[in-house]
C-alpha cells in the first residue's frame, strides 16, 4: 500500500504512539524498536512503514543499518490542534479549485 496516510490515523494507534515516544529520545534501528514490544516483528515493521509514510518518522542509512528518528517538524504540526481544521478547509478548497478548473467559462 502506497497511499499517502493520514497523520491522525497513524497516531490513533496505541502501538504507534508508543513507538514515537520510544524514538523521541534517540534514533533506533527497527530491531531495537521491536525488542521493546511483545508484538511480532512484521507487525512492528508495518507500524514503522506507516509512521514513515506519513512523515512522522524519518530513516537514515548508517552503514548497513537503517535508523529511525522523529521528524520534529511533522510532530509539531500534529501537536498544533488547529492543523486538522486547516486540513479540512485545505481539502475543501482543493476540491473547489479542481472543480472550477474544469468549469466551462
Amino acid at each position, binding site marked *: 500500500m502506497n497511499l499517502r496516510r493520514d497523520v491522525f490515523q497513524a497516531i490513533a494507534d496505541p502501538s504507534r504512539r508508543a513507538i514515537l515516544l520510544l524514538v523521541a529520545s534517540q534514533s533506533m534501528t527497527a530491531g531495537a524498536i521491536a525488542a521493546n514490544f511483545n508484538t511480532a516483528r512484521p507487525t512492528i515493521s508495518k507500524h514503522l512503514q506507516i509512521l514513515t509514510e506519513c512523515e512522522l518518522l524519518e530513516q537514515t542509512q548508517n552503514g548497513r543499518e537503517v535508523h529511525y528518528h522523529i521528524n520534529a517538524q511533522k510532530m509539531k504540526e500534529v501537536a498544533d490542534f488547529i492543523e486538522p481544521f*486547516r*486540513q*479540512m*478547509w*485545505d481539502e*475543501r478548497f482543493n476540491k*473547489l479549485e479542481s472543480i*472550477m478548473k474544469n468549469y466551462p467559462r
Partner: protein
Amino acid sequence: MERKTTVHAEDGKQELTITREFDLPVELLFKAYTTPEIVEQWMGTKVIKLENQKHGSYQFETTDPKGNKHVFHGTIHEFSPNHQITRTFEMENTPFGVQLEFHAFERLTDSTSKLVMHVVYKSVTLRDQILQMPFDVGINMAHNRLQDIMNQQL
C-alpha cells in the same frame, strides 16, 4: 506538501481567519460559492436553499457516514458579486450557536484570486471547541477504520 490554506487563530480571541489563494479567476471562485450544484460538490453537502441576495437565506444538509442528517443554515447580510459575502452560519441542534462570516473575494491577476474568510464566534470557548472538532472526528474515524480492519482479520 504545499500550504495553500492558512488558518490564523490567536489565543484568547473569539474569531479566526482562513486565507487561501486560488489558481482561478475571481469570477469562477465566486461562482463556486453561489451555484448550488457546485457548492454541493466541494462542500460535500446537499443545498436545500441558497438565495444569493441581501436578506436572502440558505440551508444545507449533510448526511454523515452513520446516516444522521445535519442541517446548517444562515442569513445573507451582504452580497456583492466577485467581492464580498457576509452571512451568518449556524449548525442546527448543536450548542455552538450562530457565527458571523465575512468572505472577502479578491482578484490577484486575471487567472488567480484570494479568499479571506473572517469568522466571529459567540465566545472564545466556542471557537476553540469548533477548531478542535475535526481533530475529534479524525481520531474517531481512525478508530473506526482500525476497528473495521481488525474485524476483517478475525
